[in-house]
């Protein structure tokens, strides 16, 4: 057996922008290769996507996460066919679909505004794609009935889309996009118009639908919590680039860049200087003169002045300041119900937040003004690229 050279392929495992992408089994449903998208001409030219490469596996719940204007929706539109890349290829199961118009791509979209056809009933909306594909009437009817059942909307099949609630419209939009059994389903911030409770419900619903249909989902959101709870893998984007691709846990626990750590969850940033390093762990001298051991991403060689990040829940308070990795004065205690935040003014001048999970037995044992120590969990401190 010969092994084909894969020099031209984007990295599936190995480095992506210097980040380790763990190898996982499965075919690639979508491969984005070196895609650039430029809007405008001449001086006014803006690169909405700046040479993006990413592989999305079959049957995966993949999320494009980033702030508005990061290019996530542009990438989705390129995959759907509403826009065409300025450069690069988009492969669907190995076939370049980038030049095809949207009606020739076996890919369907759930729009942020749902875009339900107002002059049609719920059932007609769901059957539209199948009808356009020229399926026989009996098959359309059967599939529409199945879709209605899947999204629990059987009772409202004959209603106009203006006569149903926002949450129900959302379900119809999902059913309509799933009915033609696309190879990939694209979801453009579909939950953003729903209220908090309904959004939580739909998050679970979406996971269930993805599981039951076995269709690859590409989900666009700016909501980090949504991304963390639903995704198999997340691509964090900023300014037209993908900064990190990984499972929610990897992204949260081992952010590759300062932007990722800052965008997802809360993080403490501590300034320091690298004094020594060996096999992925560096000793960093902080402003308070304390020295901490901090991990760093592979392919990154920290030296000199660096920023150390510690998640608030990866640290704990101790009453004996001398036993802490760092020490300071407890400035403020904020009670959140499920947990308590301790704001500590470190000896070196930095601010530090420790999050402590509340329990029935645990009482708030620290009072503002007290001298406290902070202990980092193993691997809790990491050095990141700015």
């Amino acid at each position: 057996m010969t092994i084909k050279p894969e020099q031209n392929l984007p990295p599936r495992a190995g480095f992506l922008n210097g980040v380790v992408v763990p190898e996982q089994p499965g075919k690639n449903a979508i491969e984005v290769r070196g895609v650039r998208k430029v809007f405008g001409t001449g001086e006014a030219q803006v690169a909405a996507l700046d040479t993006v490469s990413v592989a999305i596996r079959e049957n995966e719940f993949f999320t494009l996460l980033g702030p508005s204007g990061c290019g996530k929706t542009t990438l989705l539109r390129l995959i759907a066919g509403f826009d065409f890349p300025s450069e690069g290829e988009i492969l669907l199961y190995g076939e370049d679909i980038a030049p095809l118009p949207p009606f020739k791509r076996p890919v369907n979209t759930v729009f942020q505004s749902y875009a339900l056809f107002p002059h049609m009933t719920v059932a007609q909306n769901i059957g539209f794609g199948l009808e356009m594909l020229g399926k026989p009437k009996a098959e359309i009817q059967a599939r529409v009935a199945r879709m209605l059942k899947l999204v629990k909307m059987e009772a409202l099949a004959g209603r106009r889309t203006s006569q149903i609630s926002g949450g129900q419209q959302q379900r119809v939009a999902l059913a309509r996009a799933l009915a033609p059994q696309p190879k990939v389903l694209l979801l453009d911030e579909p939950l953003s118009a729903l209220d908090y409770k309904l959004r939580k419900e739909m998050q679970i619903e979406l996971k269930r639908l993805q599981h039951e249909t076995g269709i690859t989902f590409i989900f666009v959101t700016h909501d980090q919590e949504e991304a963390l709870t639903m995704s198999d893998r997340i691509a964090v984007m900023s300014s037209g680039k993908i900064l990190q691709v990984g499972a929610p846990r990897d992204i949260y626990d081992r952010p590759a860049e300062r932007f990722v750590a800052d965008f997802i969850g809360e993080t403490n940033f501590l300034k320091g200087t690298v004094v020594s390093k060996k096999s992925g762990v560096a000793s960093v001298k902080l402003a308070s003169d304390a020295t901490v051991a901090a991990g760093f991403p592979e392919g990154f060689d920290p030296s000199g002045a660096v920023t150390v990040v510690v998640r608030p829940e990866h640290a704990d308070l101790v009453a004996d300041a001398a036993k802490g990795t760092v020490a300071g004065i407890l400035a403020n205690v904020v009670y959140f119900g499920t947990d308590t935040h301790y704001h500590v003014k470190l000896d070196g001048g930095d601010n530090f937040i420790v999050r402590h999970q509340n329990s029935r037995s645990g009482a708030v044992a620290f009072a503002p003004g007290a001298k406290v120590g902070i202990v980092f969990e193993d691997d809790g401190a990491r050095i990141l690229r700015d």
Partner: protein
Amino acid sequence: MADPRTIDIKDQPGFRSIAILCLCVLYVPILILMIFSFNTGSLVTHWEGVGFGWYGSALLNEEFHRAAQNTLIISTSATIISTIVATLAAIGMTRVKPWRGLPAAFMVINLPLVVPEIITAVATLSFFALIAGAFGLNFGIGNLILAHTVFCIPFAYMPIRARLEDMDLTLEAAAADLYATPWHAFRRITLPLLVPGIMSGAALAFIVSFDDFTITQLVAGPGQTTLPLYIWNQIRRPMTPEINAISTILLLVSILFVSVSFLIARRRAK
């Protein structure tokens, strides 16, 4: 609760009296015209009693029938042609990539709204005279249909364009996403949603064609008398309340069309 920042127009001094004056100036003459259509006497200025005699004689009047027939043929044809042209123009100007001549095209379409009608009338007359002289061509009533079509286009165009611009473009994107070719997306999504705009545009076109006088007066040949021309000819003779009856019928037709147009527009706004 009234918002203190807004001013209630009804509280402004003199509002009520000015409003009543304006309404009177606008509608009292029309009201008097309608009242005298029920006069039993034969003078439009001297009231004798209530009766429907003049409606009877109007409805039996052969000339009135011919004029009504001409008007109906011209207005219906002009409405259909201008609405089709306006629909195509509106689609061509809202659903394409912006092109260089777009603002100019928009101006050209709307030009008949701002050019004094008498100028259009004289120009149209000379145009038809020219082609009649040069090629010996005369389209008969077709001349009038053509002339009416031209000035009906901007009236039909405006509500159609407004509807197209209001329409959510994502709907068309969604249709394309669901395997509809551009033609199918237009046929199944854009066109059905455009129908209220088209209806409203057609109603407007019909009404401006229906009561056009200036252009018709200049372009119309013998035997091409329309209703407004017929009324004009009648009032040059000793007037009878028959003319009031005919005018009232015309007014009711106009009101009917404007109401239909308005109701369609209101329904789509919901």
